[in-house]
């Protein structure tokens, strides 16, 4: 297959007019606010989720700054509770869950499938507005006095605290439906809108990962919906289901919550795996090692993830035998996950590795995710978990996955598809510096947390005994470096949009369908429907000309 170089439209001979792309085809506020185009919706999601990331990051920096001194620097205890809750809620519900599927996925999935749009474009727009509504509820809840329950809303505390838990509960309920609709849309799109010749095993692995994610979004999120709804009903009407004083059961809440929220961890991380699968092959210019195994391991993770929620509750009081099962099944998740990690490393091996900034982020991911994943296995062991439960060790573990792996994969994907989305290229040197700052800052933040966690520093405390001071200080310095790295990234990405240095038609030499259309894509993606005749990641079919042709 060859990439079509777009014809230059000339109004008068010799005068080059701007090619019509999805970015400039129509203008005005309503052409964006009422758009049904998946790329525009993806872009709006990208702006929204990035804003949530920056807000959540700011809260994180405030938390770290507060913990500089053992007695706390900035807040009283109640304010501290609010700030870390805001950090958790913004990051989990407004950034991590929607960022990769709804922003990058929306942008790339139909392109990689060779489709004009997602199957249900109006539902896609509705999903975005539900996200906006959820975000407004979150902001209203802050204005109405904030919330201090942590992102997990554990009962009975969440039933009695005099803060705006009802509002944020409704926000989470609405965000849940936003997530469900994105997942539902992707499942239908993958089933019904694949280009001719694009069989299941010719699909790029980003699609496979998004497909597995979507199944989780559709099947797990409703349970969170009913759970937060019951908390809201409980707060208003005191029906007593989660309230021990009325004969209810707080552990039942935990079961409900984690039945969603454990699969939700994979809703967050599977799309990240998808990005990494895509990037290791493109930037090593070598077909993926173990393509089918990676595809099936996504599905295996999706299925097993429904059976491990009890490992969040080893100290909450559940049957010993259930705990054995949950612990064992937790170890079991490590198998498909390790299959992925090994396959990625084997893909890079003897590849023609280009150390572009997306690849640097990818390599950083591989290192960080190995640590994040293995510490998860440590926490899955029953006896060890009793010691480590609710300590900074847990905090460090899930930040290695949530921030170190997912956010880094998001950045990797963003850098990889940035030239595709906008037709412009950022400053690669800046990108490499920022990647280094993020990698160093991230590890400096969380390695001390592993150490102090294993020595008993409990999470969510506003103050601490002075013995932990060196670790907290190191962690805070790391967080500041990380913050500078992210701020720098935002800076050069925005600058790239202003400077408009043209990217290449096929910047990295990818062979999946999104590179078969002009950069940036026209409104309906493909001037004629693509037909897939070759196997996935077949780099012998790459038209090298396109990698040195500037985008129009």
């Amino acid at each position, binding site marked *: 297959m060859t990439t079509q170089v777009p014809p230059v439209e000339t109004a008068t001979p010799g005068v080059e007019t701007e090619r019509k792309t999805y970015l400039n085809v129509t203008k005005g506020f309503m052409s964006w606010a009422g758009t049904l185009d998946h790329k525009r919706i993806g872009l709006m999601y990208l702006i929204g989720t990035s804003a949530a990331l920056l807000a959540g990051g700011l809260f994180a920096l405030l938390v770290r700054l507060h913990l500089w001194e053992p007695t706390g620097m900035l807040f009283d205890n109640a304010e501290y509770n609010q700030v870390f809750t805001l950090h958790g809620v913004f990051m989990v519900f407004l950034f991590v869950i929607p960022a990769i599927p709804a922003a990058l996925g929306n942008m790339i999935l139909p392109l990689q499938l060779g489709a004009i749009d997602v199957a249900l474009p109006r539902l896609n727009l509705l999903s975005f507005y539900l996200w906006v509504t959820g975000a407004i509820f979150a902001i209203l809840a802050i204005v109405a006095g904030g919330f201090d329950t942590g992102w997990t809303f554990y009962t009975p505390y969440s039933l009695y605290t005099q803060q705006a838990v009802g509002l944020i509960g409704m926000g989470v309920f609405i965000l849940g439906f936003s997530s*469900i609709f994105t997942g539902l849309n992707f499942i239908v799109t993958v089933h019904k*809108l694949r280009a001719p010749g694009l069989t299941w095993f010719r699909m790029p692995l980003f699609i496979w990962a998004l497909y597995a994610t979507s199944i989780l979004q559709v099947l797990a999120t*409703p349970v969170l919906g*009913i759970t937060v709804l019951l908390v809201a009903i409980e707060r208003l009407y005191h029906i007593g*289901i989660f309230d021990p004083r*009325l004969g209810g059961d707080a552990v039942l809440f935990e079961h*409900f919550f984690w039945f969603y929220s454990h699969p939700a961890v994979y809703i967050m991380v599977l799309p990240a795996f998808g990005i990494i699968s895509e990037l290791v092959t493109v930037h090593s210019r070598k077909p993926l090692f173990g393509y089918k195994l990676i595809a099936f391991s996504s599905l295996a993770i999706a299925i097993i993830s429904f059976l491990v929620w009890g490992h969040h509750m080893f100290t909450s009081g559940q049957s010993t035998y259930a705990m054995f099962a949950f612990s064992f099944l937790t170890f079991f998740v490590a198998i498909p996950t390790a299959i992925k990690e090994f396959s990625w490393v084997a893909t890079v091996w003897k590849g023609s590795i280009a150390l572009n900034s997306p690849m640097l982020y990818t390599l950083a991911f591989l290192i960080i995710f190995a640590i994040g994943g293995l510490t998860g296995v440590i926490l899955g062991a029953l006896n060890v978990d009793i010691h480590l439960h609710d300590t900074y060790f847990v905090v460090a573990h899930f930040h290695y996955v949530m921030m170190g792996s997912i956010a880094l994969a998001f950045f990797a994907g963003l850098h990889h598809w940035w030239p595709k989305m906008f037709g412009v290229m950022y400053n690669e040197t800046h990108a490499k510096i920022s990647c280094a700052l993020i990698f160093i800052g991230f590890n400096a933040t969380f390695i001390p947390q592993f150490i102090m966690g294993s020595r008993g520093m409990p999470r969510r405390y506003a103050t601490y005994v002075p013995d932990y001071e060196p670790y907290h200080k190191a962690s805070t310095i790391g967080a500041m470096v990380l913050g500078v790295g992210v701020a720098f990234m935002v800076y050069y990405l925005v600058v790239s949009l202003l400077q408009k240095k043209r990217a290449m038609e096929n910047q990295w030499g990818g062979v999946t369908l999104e590179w078969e259309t002009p950069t940036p894509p026209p409104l*309906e993606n493909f001037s004629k429907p693509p037909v897939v005749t070759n196997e996935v990641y077949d780099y012998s079919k790459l038209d090298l000309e396109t990698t040195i042709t500037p985008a129009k």
Partner: protein
Amino acid sequence: MSHDDHHSVVIPAPGPEFKPHTVAHHFDTPVQEFQSAKLGFWLFLATEILLFGGLFAAYFYFHEQYPETFVVGGKQLDWRLGGLNTCVLLLSSWTMAMGVRAAQTSQKKKLLMYCGLTVLGAAIFMVIKFFEYKAKSDHGLFVFSEMLGGYDTATGQLPWFTDIHGVMAGVPHGHMFFAIYVTMTGIHGLHVIIGAGLIIWIMFGAAKGRFHAGYYLPVDLVGLYWHLVDLIWIFLFPLLYLVP
């Protein structure tokens, strides 16, 4: 938005009283559009089942914890009214199915009639439900006007559960059955109202002639939704009225 509509397929209207349907621009064929929407809608129904699944899990859990409140509480419900409502919903499911059939065979008047009958069924259901709720409210088993009253954490006295006639006297956590009963049937009732609203929306479309043998997708989907609402009630009725 100015889409290229060079590949938009138009399904012609079967008669002058109907309107043609334009297949959405990103689909190649009407079949693809139909199947996509249907698959999406089944997935949505799965999320509805899981949403209620949480409530059913709560039901079974507390049934196990406090069997007595379910035995004594269940006896306070009128199984005759519940049974009547089950019949009403089952009948309305039949009229809905007939409505879908009428749309498939381009019978505009029949479609309107059967949809109207289905909405009537929904209304009868809600009226009966109202009188059931009112009876419970009058007996102090679930006082709707007191639901926002909070409660005295010292005595644990709930303003919405005063149990005027003492039917639940001595039963530990007697309010729990009614809490679950009203939550489950309340959320179900909300679905009945939404379903009726959707059917009325279908009737507006049908009056304009939008639905016919060539295009009856929305009728089909709303029909599926209505059957789900019916199906959930079929589980709620025995669990709440009969099992205790």
